[in-house]
């Protein structure tokens, strides 16, 4: 059995809110192995966004520990976290979060800029990534000139380009119509199957979650169920 990519032990996150403390996560123990395709589900307020921020190294836990690809992330400084996000994580957001003034190609290059790669190499890798999501002919288009599905594919290319340990998708189809959603889900499936890409997807739609091989459900800040789909 291989080492888990993600391992959390007693992961807790409290927020102070108007004099009260909101306990968003109350001790989450989770292990995700390489090549897994996991959906994290739960109603709103269940803590799935908080968990996703912690797994994505955008936030640090109040208590508990978190290892990502063997590194203990829960003790890291801001800049170390930035480096981990850059190298280990590929984000796909609900709202795409592309830079509006930059071309598709430049958007995809951006993580490589922060990785310190030379321009030529960046270019080459970004072109490959865009081609792999079927946008080889849209590289110079700006986000506004692309459809929602195309934008999300640019975002997926941006997530892939650094060859991260995990792709972290936060409601990736939340802003897309159902046929486009299917299209995007096919890309994720393809990534998982052909590359063995580890994918963690946060969603509240069971239609989307069924694409994953494993579904983890959160309720009130704790894992209420963790089911493997029968192959």
């Amino acid at each position, binding site marked *: 059995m291989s080492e888990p990519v993600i391992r959390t032990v007693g992961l807790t996150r409290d927020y102070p809110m108007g004099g009260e403390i909101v306990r968003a996560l109350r001790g989450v123990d989770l292990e995700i192995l390489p090549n897994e395709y996991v959906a994290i589900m739960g109603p709103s307020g269940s803590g799935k966004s908080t968990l996703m*921020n912690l797994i*994505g190294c*955008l*936030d640090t836990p109040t208590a508990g520990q978190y290892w990502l690809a063997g590194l203990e992330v829960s003790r890291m400084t*801001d*800049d170390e976290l*930035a*480096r981990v*996000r*850059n*190298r280990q994580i590929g*984000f796909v*957001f609900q709202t795409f*979060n*592309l*830079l509006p*003034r930059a071309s598709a190609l430049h958007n995809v290059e*951006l*993580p490589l*800029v*922060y*990785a310190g790669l030379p*321009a030529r190499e960046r270019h080459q890798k970004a072109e490959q990534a865009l081609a792999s999501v079927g946008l080889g002919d849209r590289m110079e288009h700006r986000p506004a000139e692309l459809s929602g599905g195309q934008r999300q594919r640019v975002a997926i290319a*941006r997530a892939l380009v*650094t060859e991260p340990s995990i792709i972290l998708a936060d409601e990736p189809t939340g802003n897309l119509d159902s046929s486009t959603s299917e299209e995007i889900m096919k890309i994720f499936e393809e990534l998982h199957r052909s590359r063995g890409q580890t994918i963690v997807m946060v969603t509240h739609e069971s239609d989307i979650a069924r694409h994953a091989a494993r579904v983890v459900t959160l309720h009130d800040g704790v894992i209420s169920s963790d089911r493997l789909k029968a192959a």
Partner: protein
Amino acid sequence: MSLLEAIRLAFGMIRAQKLKSFFSTIGAFIGVMFLIAVVSIVKGMDKYVQEDFAAKIFGINTFTVSRRPGVQFGDPGDAVRRAWRRRPQLYEDDFHAIRAALPSDYLVAIESSNQAEGVVGTKHSDYIQVSGVSEDLFKIRDYQIADGRIFTPEEINHSANVVVIGTDVADSFFTGEEPVGKTIRIAGFPYTVIGVVEKQGNVFGFSLDRFAIAPYTSEIKKVVNPHKVVDGIIVKSPNDPMMHAAMDRVEGVMRSRHHLRPEEDDDFHLDTQEDVLSFWSKIANVLYTALPLLVGVSLVVGGIVIMNIMLMAVAERTREIGVRKSLGARRRDILAQFLVESATLSTTGAVLGILSGLGLARLVQAISPLPMGVSPMSILLGIVLGIGVGVISGVYPASRAARLDPVTALRAE
């Protein structure tokens, strides 16, 4: 991210928001424009005064003996002026004494001047500068004769009523006519024009060609200086090192003629080109002292404007900052991005300011006699100030951007 890419990114931002960028750089723009324009103009004046003005008015290796200083910076006060009035006059005999004391390769001349009206037929001129001089003055001033001749020592001895005029005077009385041989009444006395001096041009817009020069012995002495009194005795030495020796010599002659005891101060004055130059350098110093104040105020205001614009930019682009952070931008990457952006903004303003400043100086050059002098140092300083203002005013907004929490930033609208 390399600096070059950051600058390219910043230019992209400036292009996307041209008008806003223009307004945000206006402080740096105006400050640097002032800097460049004033320095260029003062430098041009400097060159002008040193190469042109002083030489035209005084002449090189030339000094003037007179009763009181010809150039004075500021008010010397009543007491000093009263003392000057009590000083003895200069006389024609002083001229002869100085002439006798100096070797023949020195040029010595009398020049006494006043303003007087010229009349030809029924035509009256404005006041022109009328001078009674001795013959060496033409050589000292390096006056080239365009037409006719200068007067001879004999004509001086015989108090001949002959006159050499400047081109302005020739043009106003004898348009299209031959001036030589014509008669012109100067301060009521009839004079025969014997020569016209080549055009001298002007200083600070004042024509140097509105003059009439006659023998100091002729009748205009009643207007310029009666009773063998003279305004000034001008001495030109053959070269620079010998001028100071000549000044010492002349001082000695004058002191002994005025019977001054060793402890007494001179009761006459020796003016040189250097006096004009030091007079000018005092004016230039005042300008150079006021300039940093003017530039400083514009730059401080400009810096505050840029800081506000950058704070707005950080607020507007919070989401972008969140995205960049999620993709691996460290604090220092975000800090550098916004610092470079604000420095690029103000440096762009500074470069535009340099261009406009040079344009302004060129305009002054075009509409006035002042030449412009471009100072490479001031251009360099302009650019350094531009970068400096941008960096300083960018520090606070950029560090706010860098400190943003990625989760909050990503949620921003």
